[in-house]
């Protein structure tokens, strides 16, 4: 392979792209994820109405079934409306934005925390390593959803009541982020322990670089590919965790509904026959979680041929 070729050219000839094209399931999941992300990012432009704007709601439009004109106002909604006459399609698009935002930032938080702790544990060794890894051992004894609930509950207790709804999203991100750092730390620690014995690290140490610089500039780039795999799989977990917490009523507040909150609202109307309020948000969540999961599985197989 000649070094002169452009980055794009190299990408076009890579095994990575070849493998990607050969797996139709992966291509479909990738397209779904990209579409959902675009929808979430451009929610203001794409959504027919703004579901947070109370002025645009018309109570007469409540409980309109999908694709049928409302009996009073004659308006038609693609996916119907909820009890307050809110257009469900818009609510889902904006809910998708909340779900993806919480999921992505929580994963970034978990990644930064886990990778730093893993680097330090692997590079320093000794009692620092024991301390960090023991903490990780204790934390994985408990399911992460339980830990997230607990952190959420403690944070609610510490915050004054009027700030609880305002800061709910931030608290949610911290709770999920803190509950998912262990896999990152374990993997990075393992790779770091291998990498730090290699010659390039010894050379860097010989020319007098500080350990911080060696960790970040020299070791970190070499431990990143497993981190990418874990991040994708954790993203699916974080999205599901967020939806679960919001569904249970201890997550996103009703003023900023995520997909989980929408499903919670929809459950109330299941018995009176308004199935669309529940099923459309549920289907969106399922499509998102399943596609991210499949992408993660595929990435793991590609970047880690040994695990195949």
């Amino acid at each position, binding site marked *: 392979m000649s070094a002169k070729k452009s980055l794009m050219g190299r990408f076009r000839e890579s095994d990575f792209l070849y493998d990607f094209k050969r797996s139709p399931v992966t291509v479909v999941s990738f397209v779904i994820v990209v579409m959902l992300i675009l929808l979430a990012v451009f929610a203001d432009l794409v959504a027919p109405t703004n579901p947070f704007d109370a002025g645009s709601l018309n109570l007469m439009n409540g409980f309109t079934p999908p694709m049928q004109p409302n009996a009073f106002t004659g308006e038609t909604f693609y996916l119907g409306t909820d009890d307050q006459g809110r257009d469900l399609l818009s609510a889902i698009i904006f809910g998708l934005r909340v779900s993806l935002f919480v999921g992505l930032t929580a994963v970034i938080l978990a990644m930064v925390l886990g990778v730093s702790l893993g680097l330090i544990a692997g590079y320093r060794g000794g009692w620092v390593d024991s301390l960090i890894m023991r903490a990780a051992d204790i934390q994985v004894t408990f399911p992460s959803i339980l830990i997230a609930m*607990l952190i959420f509950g403690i944070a609610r*207790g510490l915050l004054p009541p009027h700030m609880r709804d305002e800061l709910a999203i931030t608290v949610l991100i911290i709770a999920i982020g803190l509950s998912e750092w262990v896999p990152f730390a374990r993997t990075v620690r393992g790779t770091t322990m291998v990498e730090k014995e290699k010659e390039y690290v010894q050379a860097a140490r010989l020319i007098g670089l500080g350990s911080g610089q060696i960790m970040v500039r020299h070791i970190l780039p070499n431990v990143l590919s497993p981190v990418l795999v874990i991040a994708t799989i954790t993203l699916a977990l974080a999205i599901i965790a967020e*939806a*679960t917490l919001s569904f249970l009523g201890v997550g996103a507040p009703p003023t900023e509904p995520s997909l989980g909150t929408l499903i919670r609202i929809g459950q109330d109307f299941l018995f009176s*026959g308004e199935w669309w309020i529940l099923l459309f948000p549920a289907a969106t969540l399922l499509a998102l979680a399943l596609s991210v999961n499949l992408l993660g599985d595929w990435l793991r197989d590609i970047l880690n041929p040994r695990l195949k």
Partner: protein
Amino acid sequence: MLLIILRRLGQSVFVLFLVAFVSFMMFRYVGNPVDNLLGQEATVEQREALIEALGLNDPLHTQYLGFVTRALQFDFGNSYRGAQPVADMILERLPATLELALVSALFAMLFGVIAGVYTAIFRNGFSAHLIMSTSLIGVSLPTFLIGVLLIWLFAVELGWLPSFGRGETVQIGFWSTSLLTVSGLKSMVLPAITLGLYQMTLIMRLVRAEMLEILRQDFIRFARARGLPERVVYFGHALKNTLVPVITVAGLQLGSIVAFAIITETVFQWPGVGLMFINAVFFVDIPVMSAYLLLVGTLFVVINLIVDLLYLAIDPRIRDSQLKRQST
């Protein structure tokens, strides 16, 4: 060997103390016990008196020891809402959660093993493929969504089963059971499936993988050569040898069944400790949260300890590696 067991025990006790410390810190600092007991209009003198009476001026380690001692006597203080003793609330609701966990674990075990054996024996059949691919979707579905979809199908559309609550219960001593009434059993079906589905797919995949591995081995071929009927080969020889890893995984999963019971209980409004915990988080009822943490923490530590000790007893290789690490 004794040394390893003692060390493992010591580790568990340490984790228990850590869990107790976290719940103590929550109890003591997150919620303000004085404000919650007295309300806003109390005078300074009343506050001082209560602080003294509760021992909140004592040194921290004395307070911590007091907290642990009281917890060991099953005294977790009173709930902020309703001022009921937390211990009573837990005792009242524990049977509901334990029955649900037990039934769903049995469901997962029974159907997981049956489906696993079936898909291993007919591994190229159409229905085996169908079961395997459906299980993949089942794993990706969040628990609460499974519950909601089951309610939609079986309670709303078909109207076969109740969608919430425990049905009628029968009181046996302090234990209230819903397993002895028809409405109780009917109410159990959907929550038990919701809670056990994930474990079932896990056990099914494990049994299938282990069976495929074992069916290739010589003693199976020998058993067939002896002219034993297929039924005996599959169940007497092959399945028996898959059970050790299956039981370990099932044991480890007991802990997560308790954790996921929180979700299932909320979906079905099942009056157990999980629903109590979620309500406590929602209303910031700190004593209930802290007691729940202590209870579930202890449960997890004990389960892990038992599994680890069983490993030591069963597998000599683990024992040896531990001994080696000790000598270096």
